[in-house]
């Protein structure tokens, strides 16, 4: 979506950024001979909202997915909340329960009701009692605005509703970090806003978020930092004002001219 509103001031958020919760140093990743990530170094502070943009195939999803080890990285270090991501299974499990992810295709479990979609990890990972889990599910669905859908199956919901359930499902684990991989790209235009509103509210509440999106309005209005990726590298990053008003790199300018 192209949103040309001029930004008057850097987005104000009623919280200060905390300690460094994600630290990446020279992260590299190969798929066979093809190098998808060519040395990513960045840090994300607690409560920060980072929006990643970039052309298709630039490694945005791959980078996001290395952060909860859906893709293991080949070189470099990733430290999430003080725990290094490596082959140690306990670390992976600890980090996965602290990092929620929302996918482009929702990936709800079609054979389970909305309630079970959200409570599955609560009962099987957090070992909550069913009644406690249900209470939590109800409050989460209220938070994303669809408490009445609790007994339905995913296929009975609209795309926007499904994506909101997916957000609720990730939030159920009470993660410290939320990752979003193009959460609105598979949605019909009229449903995009309801999902962005939920994300906006989440950012306001102080959640640390890394968001891959093409929604420039969201990037300008909510992000603390925009990160532009191309060919497996971070080409440029900065506050939305710096980034959109005065891009430094030619590749950034070219990309912005194509999408805005």
């Amino acid at each position, binding site marked *: 979506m192209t949103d040309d509103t001029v930004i008057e001031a850097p987005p104000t958020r009623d919280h200060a950024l905390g300690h460094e919760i994600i630290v990446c140093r020279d992260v590299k990743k190969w798929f066979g001979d093809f190098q998808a990530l060519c040395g990513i170094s960045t840090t994300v502070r607690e409560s920060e909202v980072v929006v990643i943009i970039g052309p298709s195939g630039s490694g945005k999803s791959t980078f996001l997915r290395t952060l*909860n080890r*859906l893709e293991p990285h080949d070189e470099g270090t990733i430290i999430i909340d003080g725990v290094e991501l490596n082959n140690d299974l306990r670390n992976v*499990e600890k980090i*996965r*329960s602290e*990092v*929620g*992810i929302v*996918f482009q*295709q929702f*990936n*709800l*479990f*079609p*054979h389970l*009701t909305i309630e079970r979609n959200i409570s*599955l*990890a609560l009962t*099987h*990972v957090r070992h909550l009692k*069913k009644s406690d889990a249900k209470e939590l599910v109800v409050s989460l669905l209220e938070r994303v605005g669809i408490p009445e859908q609790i007994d*339905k*199956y*995913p*296929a*009975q919901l609209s795309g926007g509703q499904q994506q909101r359930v997916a957000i609720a*499902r*990730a939030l159920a*684990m009470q993660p410290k970090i939320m990752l979003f991989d193009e959460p609105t790209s598979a949605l019909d235009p009229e449903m995009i806003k309801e999902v962005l509103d939920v994300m906006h509210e989440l950012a306001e509440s102080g959640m640390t978020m890394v968001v891959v999106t093409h929604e420039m309005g969201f990037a300008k209005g909510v992000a603390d930092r925009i990160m532009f990726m191309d060919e497996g590298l971070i080409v440029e990053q900065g506050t939305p004002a710096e980034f959109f008003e005065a891009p430094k790199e030619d590749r950034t300018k070219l990309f912005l001219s194509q999408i805005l």
Partner: protein
Amino acid sequence: MTAQSRPIAPALPPHVVAYRWARANLFSSPGNAVLTIVTVAILGLAAYQGSRFVFATAEWEIIEANRGLFFTGRFPRDEFWRIWVTLHGVAVLFGLSWRLWGTLSWRLPLVFAAACVPLYVFMLEGWAILWTSTSIAAFAAAYFAAWPVRFSRFRDLARNLTVWLWILGFAAAMLPTALYPSFLPGQGGLFSHVPDREWGGLFLTMVLAIVGIAVSFPLGVLLAVGRASTFPVIRIFCVAYIEMVRAVPLITILFMSFFILRLAIRHETSILGIPITGYEVSVVFMAMLGFVLFSAAYIAEIVRGGLQAVPRGQIEAGQALGLGGVQVLALIVLPQALRAVIPALVSQFISLFKDTSLVFILALTDLLAVSRIAPAQPGFIGLHAEALLFIGLIYWVIAFSMSRASQQLERNLGVGER
């Protein structure tokens, strides 16, 4: 409603409708008319001959006189109570399950019961009438006992309990067969031993089919999962097993389990003084083993197809929530994979059910074998048609019920999908 704006066609009298339909569908051209007449003539003749046989010329005494043979083979009459006890247990468990899960409608058992009427006609006699009634009563009692539990907070507990009862009951029923007769007390007493050669008829067919299905299904699922495993040793073993079994005819596997495995188990060997083999194993058990080993390979291939149909994103979503590998498999992948292949699975089960008739090569007298023995008895010589028709009906009723049940299951589980 647009009915007002359109001229309402007067309803045609039925005979006119029928006439028009026949003209359009049966007599639209001279060739078509000839075809219709010839077909009707052949069908009519077949129906006439068929019903004349069933209702007039057939000598159904062969079934009546041999009902013991047809239903239980040479199982000693004094020991019939064992079968009835088992049947009551099954009835109770069915009643509980029906109420506790209850996704199948009542139409199915009614159709099944109606189809069974010709069987009852031959089966019900003396004590059998009483036992059949008490079985049905046991089913109903269990169903209504579980009635209030369905929507109470004890439902999950009751469901778990029922599953365990099924498993334990199954094991308890199997144990004597598997351990035959090494660990059983000798003749006499409550658990005197019924030689497996005396098992037969519908009873044997059902035992073989139920055990074959109930054991080969989980085994097949394990093989399919193993085939998709990332551990090379497990994967190679599963692939080798599946491909080997699928390359061999069932009859060969039955022969092998009978002539090679059974003799190997009978041959005494021991490691450090602990006897490893040297047991007498029943023929029925070896036949079960053959069916299980054979069917598992086919089920594995069916399930593999289902596993491949589950999108990668489902697994990732599970992993991202912190679920472990086994949890992702059991809670997310398998339920979806199995649902997708219900029709193919049930086809495989029906095949297995019918394939049990191959045990005649091990000299067991299953339903099919009985239909060959009965018409060889003095007094019933040559009454093959009656015997075959009767067992054909039994096979059909059971196979058809399985097929219908699978369709219902598919519909009910399909709730919310797509």
